[in-house]
């Protein structure tokens, strides 16, 4: 037996798929992947969705999710092939020697039990330690993970703590039984950048303190670069590149890895003249119901043919601002001016021309299109609704639009379920373009997409802007996207506008506190960034 904790060889995983209208068939989703993990080391698994990351992660626990079958290869854990072990043996390992941290902590905790009870449950159940010992260890872990009031934290219920704290609580759950290996499945993906950095630091600190090994699964190379020792890049269930983190980041060998490393180059330089506004909002106050005010005195403007990025974390009022502009949530006070005219606060009071001029693209393209309409219906409806196009004429325009979004005529009779994530978002773009609008509000249109697909969508949006002079109000929490495409930026925090101006001005010092925090929290593709960012923060805190 060597010091290899986990040794996976030629792992092969199959699943049965049920394509609509065809007979079910078996497909291979992981093709002979091999890797080794030593005690106390962290291996990052990275790839786009469908690359097989999570499937491999779970297979390391000898678990096949949702119809996945492990059909080949071996996985030696501490010298024992867990794929060949009996079910009861594997069950004994899980939760005591191998633990799992899921993406959505909110969904993984039982809301009806106290956190402390849930965290020690598996440890006690497996007989690793007594309840009192486990509780003591949990308190210690809360401390390591930087949770507030570690002594009382375990007494709380899941809804009483924040998302970032819940994610750390789940890490504590995994660490509680002193496992040899933890599988982290996208633990920070659902968090805001400013929270992500804390959780990331906590996880890294805890791994170092406890000397456990980890598989860290994510789609964000910049994140994984901060915590791993080795990285494996996956695509379509195959290993693309596997090596030490420094080599992958600094001298990637494969084309695909290089693309991942270099993603989000500057697509567009900032427009110079930002004086002629198309859309102006002045002193907007808005509230849901009578009591919950979410927007306080927000004002900004967006010039014609340009892109304004609205940035902020969840709950900052970005999307609410969009709802006010579209008329879905009439403002309490303030004014929205569009193309020289006042927009009525209520949607019902707006003339059709105003509706046509102002289109929207959503975050989840899946639910933004009626699943029972074909691409032809989806893109064609605005054409007949606004312009009265029928028959041949309408079809011709739909095909033109499909060409414009680089998809082509062959997609015209497909249903949304038959499109990929990127294609769905393209169809949504075509639908808004069909109305020939002056302004498109983009509500996080790329955040649900893989980085390379998102990049293509951004490029498409920019080239369409050049062609049609349409303006974008681009809502996002991703600073890298903002850097790439914005002309001007509005930073929002807790319903207030904290910073607004041309991109170059907003992104250069002197910063206000929040913008500074936001910019420093964005992971960079650089080794040791996490430590640097954290020490920057500590110095500032000491200085203040």
């Amino acid at each position, binding site marked *: 037996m060597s010091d290899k904790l986990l040794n996976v060889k030629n792992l092969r995983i199959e699943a049965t798929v*049920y394509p*609509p*209208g065809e007979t079910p068939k078996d497909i291979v989703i992981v093709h002979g992947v091999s890797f080794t993990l030593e005690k106390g080391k962290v291996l990052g698994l990275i790839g786009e969705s469908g690359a097989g990351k999570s499937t491999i992660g779970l297979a390391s626990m000898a678990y096949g999710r949702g119809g996945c079958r492990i059909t080949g290869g071996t996985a030696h854990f501490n010298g024992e092939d867990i794929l060949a072990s009996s079910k009861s043996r594997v069950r004994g390992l899980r939760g005591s020697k191998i633990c799992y941290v899921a993406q959505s902590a909110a969904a993984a905790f039982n809301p009806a039990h106290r956190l402390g009870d849930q965290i020690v449950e598996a440890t006690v159940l497996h007989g690793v330690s007594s309840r009192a010992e486990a509780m003591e260890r949990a308190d210690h872990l809360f401390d390591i993970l930087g949770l507030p009031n570690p002594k009382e934290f375990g007494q709380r219920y899941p809804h009483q703590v924040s998302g970032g704290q819940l994610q750390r609580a789940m890490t504590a759950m995994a660490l509680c039984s002193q496992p040899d290996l933890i599988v982290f499945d996208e633990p920070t993906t659902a968090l805001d950048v400013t929270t992500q950095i804390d959780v990331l630091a906590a996880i890294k600190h805890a791994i170092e303190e406890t000397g456990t090994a980890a598989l860290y699964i994510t789609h964000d190379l910049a994140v994984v670069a901060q915590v791993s020792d080795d990285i494996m890049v996956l695509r379509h269930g195959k290993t693309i590149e596997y090596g030490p983190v420094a080599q992958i980041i600094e001298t990637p060998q494969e084309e695909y890895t290089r693309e991942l490393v270099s993603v989000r180059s500057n697509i567009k330089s900032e427009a110079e003249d930002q004086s002629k506004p198309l859309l102006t909002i002045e002193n907007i106050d808005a509230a849901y119901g009578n009591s919950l005010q979410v927007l306080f005195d927000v004002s900004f403007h967006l010039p014609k043919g340009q892109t304004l990025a609205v940035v902020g974390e969840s709950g900052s009022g970005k999307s609410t601002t969009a709802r006010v502009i*579209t*008329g*879905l949530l009439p403002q309490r006070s303030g004014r929205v001016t569009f193309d020289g005219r006042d927009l009525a606060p209520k*949607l019902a009071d*707006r003339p*059709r021309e105003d*509706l*046509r001029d*102002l*289109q*929207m693209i*959503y975050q*989840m393209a899946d*639910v*933004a*299109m*009626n*699943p*029972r*309409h074909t691409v032809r219906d989806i893109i064609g*409806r*605005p054409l007949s*609704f606004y312009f009265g196009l029928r028959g041949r004429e309408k079809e011709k325009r739909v095909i033109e639009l499909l060409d414009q979004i680089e998809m082509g005529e062959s997609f015209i009779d497909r*249903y*949304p*379920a*038959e499109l990929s994530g990127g294609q769905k978002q393209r169809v949504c773009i075509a*639908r808004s373009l069909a*109305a020939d609008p002056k302004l498109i509000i983009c509500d996080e249109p790329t955040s649900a997409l893989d980085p390379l697909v998102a990049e293509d969508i951004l490029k498409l949006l920019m080239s369409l802007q050049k062609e049609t002079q349409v303006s974008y109000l681009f809502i996002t929490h991703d600073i890298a996207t903002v850097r790439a495409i914005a002309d001007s930026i509005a930073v929002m925090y807790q319903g207030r506008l904290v910073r607004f101006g041309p991109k170059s001005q907003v992104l250069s010092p002197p910063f206000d506190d929040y913008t500074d925090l936001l910019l420093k929290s964005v992971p960079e593709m650089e080794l040791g960034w996490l430590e640097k960012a954290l020490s920057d923060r500590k110095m500032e805190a000491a200085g203040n």
Partner: protein
Amino acid sequence: MQMIKAMPWSARIGLLGVFIFLFSAVFADVLAPYGEREIVGDVWEPSSAKYLMGTDNLGRDLLSRMMYGAQTTIFISAAASVLSFSLGIFLSFLAAVMRGWTDQVLSRLNDLMMAIPTLIFALVVLAALPQELWILVLVMALIDSTRVFRLGRAVAVDIVVMDYVEAARLRGEGRMWIIFREILPNALSPLLAEFGLRFAFAVLFLSSLSFLGLGIQPPEADWGGMVKDNKDGIIFGVPAALIPGGAIAALAISVNLIVDWLLNRTSSLKGGRGDV
């Protein structure tokens, strides 16, 4: 033809069943060996070459009465179900789309209707109104539509909050477009499933009304009424009541087999909700 080839066996059986019932109902006048009200033999005669299914409690030919009964039973149940679904779906979707006081008024009225026991409600209304077929259908539809309303509203409220409905609203689409083009296709799966069940209930409800003398008036035949007429025979080992009872079951199963197939077709192909 292409469609029938692609159908699974279960759906073909269902289609065949419905076809047989419809065929015998439509051509009852030609096919039935005896008249509907004609007393041809002894009470509860067993099946023989003369009377294929035997005779009923008054000595009428059971097969002939089954065929004539199919006419009224299928027609009234189907008409009442279709009507109740049209009414229930439209009002429930309207309530889900409009929200606010429209929703409140419609939903509370619906609750009020549901609070009255259906049979008693039907008895009172039918006793007060003239005994005509269309009134019977209307009353059955109205009572059943309260159930459809509850289901329809629950389904539609989930769909109304989807981004594609919001997108349609932002486009400036009217209420009718949102109800019939955005919501209806996506709500169809659970509603179709409900239709299969409600149709069977309508047959049974009609028979209860007939038994109480407010549905189909004797001596006109309907399956539910025939079960009631012949039920005492079971004590004496006469299976006459089982034949109309079996027919009701067979009809309900056939309709549900077809509905199941439709359900699969509408849900799997388009990636909508529903089972795969």
